[in-house]
């Protein structure tokens, strides 16, 4: 088991290395660097000024060397500015003398780098954003998993019944609707004072004024309420829910045809007791892995939902970092993403071993 986990960690490190190199390569393409210089310096910079700016700010060297600097295996750049005579360097803190600065400052030294757009250390930015996304994911899970299991079990109890068909149709529809569609539909229906449900409710006197839910989750960054968090949570939950519900339904339907259920029926156990006491426990093993698989999948959902609802969490940060070519922030985001995907896989693999004794890992 220990070897298995070690090997997994090795794979994770290697994946992270490859992925970050790809990201590094793409963000350091010449047009991207030019854009960076123009956003950081001045939008009307001439080509010569761009080159000078890039050189002065440490983007001049060969790509592999700079990747090494970021990793922390190559000493950080340090040079005297030809224009101002100041010392500038990757590892140089503000006002630090060049001889006091660390030689290496990269990922291996625990330094995630500097976000050019936010003008702040990446580590200062990532932490708070991850926490915000954590809150959103928690609520999405808290809504998605129980309701998906409930729907799945209801549908799987009597395969082919009218209840099964309608719930299955709903599940397929919700899985087939991506977040950027369902999010917009929800906003239009529930969070506009001009169209959708809210003006009707106001007219009927059920609602004082304004809207049923808030179409922007920005205030949820300070204080999560039912009004500001329902729509983003529902948008994420709806998409994943259908999938888990379908898996649960299949598993439940299979269990319901098992021999021991038939025996229980013949013995006259009530349908309610058959479902609750005999079938349910066995039917829930299969959805477990599916639920774990939702974590990495949620990461993409979160990117869309956070951008749509202006909730400045990890997904939003990733989009901003990519569109601003904020190199080191984007690299840090990729590492977090790799970490989340592989850790959840690891957990689901280990969990599966415990749930299913037929699988053994040496």
């Amino acid at each position, binding site marked *: 088991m220990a070897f298995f986990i070690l090997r997994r960690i090795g794979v994770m490190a290697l994946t992270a290395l490859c992925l970050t190199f790809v990201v590094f390569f793409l963000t350091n393409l010449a*047009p991207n660097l*030019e*854009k960076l210089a*123009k*956003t*950081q*310096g*001045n*939008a*009307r*910079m*001439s080509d010569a*000024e761009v080159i*000078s*700016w890039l050189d002065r700010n440490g983007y001049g060297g060969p790509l592999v060397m700079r990747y090494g600097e970021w990793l922390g295996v190559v000493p950080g750049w340090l040079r005297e500015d030809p*224009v101002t005579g100041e010392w500038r360097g990757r590892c140089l803190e*503000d006002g630090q003398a060049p001889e006091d600065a660390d030689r290496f400052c990269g990922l291996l030294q625990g330094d995630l780098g500097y976000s*050019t*757009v*936010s*003008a*702040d250390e990446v580590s200062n930015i990532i932490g708070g954003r991850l926490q915000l996304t954590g809150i959103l994911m928690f609520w999405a899970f808290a809504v998605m998993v129980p309701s998906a299991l409930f729907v799945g079990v209801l549908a799987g109890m009597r395969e082919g019944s009218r209840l099964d068909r309608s719930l299955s149709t709903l599940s397929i529809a919700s899985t087939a609707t991506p977040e950027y569609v369902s999010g917009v539909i929800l*906003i239009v229906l529930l*969070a*506009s*004072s*001009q169209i959708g449900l809210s003006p009707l409710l106001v007219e009927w006197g059920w609602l004082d004024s*304004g*809207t049923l839910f*808030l*179409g*922007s989750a*920005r*205030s949820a960054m300070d204080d999560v309420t039912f009004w*500001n968090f329902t729509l983003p949570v529902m948008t994420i939950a709806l998409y994943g829910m259908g999938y888990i519900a379908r898996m649960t339904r299949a598993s439940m339907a299979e269990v319901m045809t098992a021999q021991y259920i038939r025996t229980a029926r013949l013995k006259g156990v009530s349908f309610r007791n058959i479902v609750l006491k005999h079938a349910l426990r066995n039917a829930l093993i299969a959805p477990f892995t599916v639920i774990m698989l939702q974590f990495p999948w949620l990461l993409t959902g979160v990117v869309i939902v956070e*951008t*749509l609802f*202006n909730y*400045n969490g990890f997904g939003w940060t990733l989009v*901003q970092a990519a*569109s601003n*070519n904020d190199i080191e922030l984007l690299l840090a985001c990729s590492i977090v993403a790799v970490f989340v995907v592989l850790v959840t896989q690891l957990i689901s693999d280990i969990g599966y071993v415990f749930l299913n004794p037929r699988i053994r890992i040496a």
Partner: protein
Amino acid sequence: MNDPTKPARPASHPAAEMYAREYKAGQLSRREFLVRSTALGLSAAAAYSLIGLKPAMAQRATPPMGGSLRIQQGVLALKDPRTYDWSEMGNVSRGLLEYLVEYNRDGSFSGILLEGWETNADVTQYTLRVRPGVTWNNGDAFTAEDVAANFRGWCDSTVEGNSMAARMGGLVDADTGQAREGGIVVVDDLTVQINLPAPDITLIPGIADYPSAIQHRDLIGTNPLDHNVGTGAYRFADYQVGISARLERTPDHAYWGNAYLDDVTFVDLGTDPAAWFAAAEAGEFDMTYQTVGEFVDLFSAVGWERSDATTGATLAVRFNQLNAPYDNVEVRRAILEAVDLNVVLELGINGQGTVGENHHVCPIHPEYAQLPPMTVDKAAAMARLQAAGHGDTELTLISLDDGLGRFTCDAVAAQMRDAGMTVTREVLPGSTFWNDWLSYPFSATEWNHRELGVQILNLAYRSGVAWNETAFSNAEFDSLLDQANGIQDADARREVMARLQQIMQEEAVTIVPYWRSLFRHYRPGVVNADMHPKFEINIHHLGLSA
């Protein structure tokens, strides 16, 4: 706060008196009179008294003290103010870093950190009177030394991206890239004298622009976020790029004027107006930075107050004359002749503005000259293009993928197609558009409002200047422009301007389809939040009614 009703110094300036006579003779509009006379150093009150009116301008309400306000606006990373390239940067730091002079909504200038200023008769010498009793929030006194140090900083053209150097004009020594010897003289603690080698009427508008925020004499070239030192009533409490910026009243700082609010938050909701609207309905901010397109009506429909400003802002659909086929004047003329600007105004910005005339001087500029109307003749345009040998040439019009740029260019392209030209539209997202935007052969560029007609011509159409995207280079134009820069009498200047405008049309430099009206919305109860022709927000003026 600058009190417009304060008795003015016995005002006078020979030119101002001349303007007053012109106004009375009906040759000048009140706005033009105000722009010209306050640019010469008269207070608005003094200017009004010259024409026998009581100041009805800049009537800002006095809101009660206290309250918090949230403004929807992009929160960009700050930097050395001289290199600011977006009005938003000036707005967010204006609570901390003030300006010498403020440009008001009605076209007049009033002193902020300057109490007033005078010019000599031929506009080569400015005497700036520093407002007494102003202190920095670190306790230092604000003096003429600070003003002089900022002028020296603005003149330093060796700083990458320092756009102030262009606004300083002749004050910059071309050889050293620094301020001219003897150009900036500290007369005493509260007086600075600026000596220009040639007449320049644009100095005061130049120092009222957003990159001219006044920094402490020892902190020139720094990012205000790093030190939080300024003369303003506020300081940064929190700054997260792309998310929000919060300013709070600086404790223990005796601010020289009035500031009403306790704190102000700038809320960044991205660039999609639909997201702003959703956030407005969710009650997440109290006033917009700017409301555009269909959202002007939508915000009004949900009960927000609308404020608008007529401006000289436009979207120039310009050619770059270094690229074929636009190096051929006949091709450019043909395109101008094919495009009906009334249609572009209607389709490009829903008619929210006034129609342009294909030269970059707006009717609200004091020296605007009326030219004979342009003719639109699609058949003649096509014939002209064919005669130039480009009848079948594919013309590619590139624009940014936003409402204004895209719809306007679509309309221009449609007009050209109507005439039979082959036009391809290329719509680029912001992530790729900005890299090469200065050198696109045929593209659109947004221009903000400037106070005087000559300013934009100096900035964008003079040979070889940094912001000249059209690559227009014309010796006659340059020398006439030099001449215009030295004529303070707008009527005399108008004669030169007429020719300058005419050259722009003859040379078919650019399509200037319209002059935009700008809109802003705010929640009922927000005070002094009116839209400014230059997008300026001064949080010192803002307040909330009880």
